[in-house]
């Protein structure tokens, strides 16, 4: 059992007189201790909503419905009452947000914003809390922490602010850290520093990290397992190398193709994915990506694509995947599952002795990756 098992998570927003929005439509993935898992996709694919739903941080509003399970160490986070959820948040599960300036309270000194976590979950007060807070700032690479504790967010640089937010998140040595686009608002050089810091923290503490990003560069540098999201569903799950070397879902291929490459010829144009995330087909009517897909066939429309589990324990949700040279589709496919099953429900690195994660599926073979 992994540390966090997200199973068939769905989030819908219903508004009177408007079409119900399925922001997250049956997402499943799992994260083990010390593992870095990526959730990748364009804006609006449901990756942030997924993380907020797991944390129980979606703004309360009428018409909001969260379904499925998010089992953290045996407890379904979605079933917890408000009080127990507050006990877990910040202590066992912590989160880092995208915009460090707006994510910090402008009228409270950094010090109090760190010590309030220590006071809440570790019962630390006064000088002990201040000392620990200074230690934390020091650990995330903020120089002169004693002075910084007394300063306000507007007096810190963007990178410092994100470091301070990270300090608050790791203050109680959480077992799971969710980072929602932690580097998007930062300069490229600062981005690299922050990613390095996160990597170090994960390596030193064995914290599981869920990395939410649209930036494939971040994914390539950080994540072991990657879930590609589109229109609220996981469309492809694979480990890093196979995913980058041989994307199977046309959307993943499109994402990789739209990244500028230094080794491309001078006159070569970028290959953006045509259309926008708004051009989606509702999943029950077929593949949501079909309207933008270059590999579209007739079978894409009509019913949602089945989940395909490949011989190398990857999975994708596509009827006409990008072919692997020298491999017939029959040899490639290990099993298919009805649409109710989810890619992540089959752990990418399941042990052969594991019971089938999805009824009808055999255990997946080991990942043969040479790092």
């Amino acid at each position, binding site marked *: 059992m992994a540390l966090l098992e997200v199973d068939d998570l769905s989030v819908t927003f219903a508004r009177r007189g408007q079409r119900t929005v399925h922001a997250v439509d049956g997402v499943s993935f799992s994260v083990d201790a010390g593992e870095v898992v990526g959730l990748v996709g364009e804006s609006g694919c449901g990756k942030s909503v997924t993380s907020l739903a797991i944390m129980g941080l979606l703004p309360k509003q009428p018409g909001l419905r969260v379904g499925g399970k998010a089992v953290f160490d045996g407890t379904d986070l979605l079933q917890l009452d408000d009080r127990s959820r507050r006990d877990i948040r910040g202590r066992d599960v912590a989160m880092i947000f995208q915009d460090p300036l707006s994510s910090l309270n402008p009228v*409270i000194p950094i010090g109090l914003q760190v010590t309030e976590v220590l006071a809440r979950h570790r019962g630390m007060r006064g000088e002990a809390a201040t000392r620990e807070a200074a230690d934390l700032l020091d650990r995330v690479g903020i120089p002169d922490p004693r002075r910084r504790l007394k300063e306000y967010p507007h007096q810190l640089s963007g990178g410092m602010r994100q470091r301070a937010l990270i300090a608050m998140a790791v203050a109680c040595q959480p077992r799971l850290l969710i980072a929602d686009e932690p580097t998007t608002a930062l300069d490229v050089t600062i981005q690299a520093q922050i990613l390095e810091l996160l990597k170090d923290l994960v390596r030193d503490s064995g914290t599981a990290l869920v990395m939410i990003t649209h930036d494939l560069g971040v994914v390539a540098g950080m994540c072991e397992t990657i879930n590609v999201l589109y229109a609220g569903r996981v469309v492809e799950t694979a480990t890093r190398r196979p995913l980058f070397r041989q994307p199977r879902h046309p959307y993943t291929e499109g994402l990789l193709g739209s990244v500028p490459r230094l080794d491309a010829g001078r006159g070569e144009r970028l290959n953006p994915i045509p259309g926008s995330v708004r051009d989606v087909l509702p999943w029950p009517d077929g593949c949501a990506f079909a309207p933008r897909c270059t590999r579209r066939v007739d079978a894409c429309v009509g019913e949602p694509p089945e989940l395909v589990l490949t011989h190398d324990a990857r999975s994708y949700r596509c009827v006409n995947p990008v072919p692997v040279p020298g491999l017939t589709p029959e040899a490639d496919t290990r099993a298919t599952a009805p649409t109710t099953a989810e890619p992540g429900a089959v752990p990418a690195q399941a042990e052969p002795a594991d019971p089938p994660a999805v009824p009808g599926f055999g255990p997946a073979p080991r990942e043969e990756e040479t790092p």
Partner: protein
Amino acid sequence: MFRFIIRRLLQLIPTLFGLSVLLFIWLHRLPGGPETAILGERGTPETRAAIRRNLGLDEPILVQYARFLRRMIRLDLGTSTGTKRAVTTEFVERFPGTVELTVMAMILAVGIGIPLGYLAARRRGRFLDHASVGGSLIGICIPVFFLAYVLKAIFAENLGWFPSSGRQDPTIGATRVTNFFVLDGLMTREWDAAADALWHLVLPGVALASIPLAIIVRITRASVLEVLNEDFVRTAEAKGLTERTVRRRHVLRNAMLPVATSIGLQTGLLLSGAVLTETVFAFSGIGAFVAESISQRDYPVLMGFIMIIAVVYVLVNLLVDLSYSVIDPRVRVR
């Protein structure tokens, strides 16, 4: 901080100077003067001229203004043409009543308005929200003097719960120190006098509080709704802080900035605008006195009153600005 306060207080000088010039010209252009008010229709041109000469109104306006300035510097506002007493004496007796009334009204408005506005925001779209938003609309629409009459008729005259007029029961025979009756009672340990004065403040205070209360409810609600959507509130929630801490430390404090501005403006308005309420409750504050002075063309009283209100406005807004720098480090003054 200290220099900021000094600078702001020095700004008072040009403000008061400009205001006094404007007022002087304006008041002296008004048709009819104190002599008409004093003599009515009976006066002959000779008696009118005599009175004007007596009051120094026959001199050129510049001479009059110079005399006014000379007195101002000595904090002497002249003599009321209506009561024949020094304007400063009149104010020292009457202004404390209005200040007490304003403080009472603002305590009610802030003490009820901020929690109500906060709760309305938290229960957005539910009964309490609709009730307070609708109620505040009614509060803004009802004329204060009408509300004052209704309150007086029900709670003073019918039910007899509160006194219907005055600032204090004269039979108590309270000692006067500052003319702030509640404060006097507390200072001289005449507890019954303080309680009685406080009791007299309730109904006019409620009437006067209605509009600021309504405005504060609305501003607080809007401001809290805005802050609740801020990312840092989500961060606070993500830290697992208790609802109480999130609410007090992160939401309310940030939501208070626009409310503080509004409290300052409202306080200034009440100090100068309590006339009708004071009249209904026969409350001897400054409002009723000034209203009387207008019909009497009592120039010294009017000039003095407007000057004092200007000073109060500047002071109240200085306080608001200082409270800003306590609440928000980004606008902290040096």
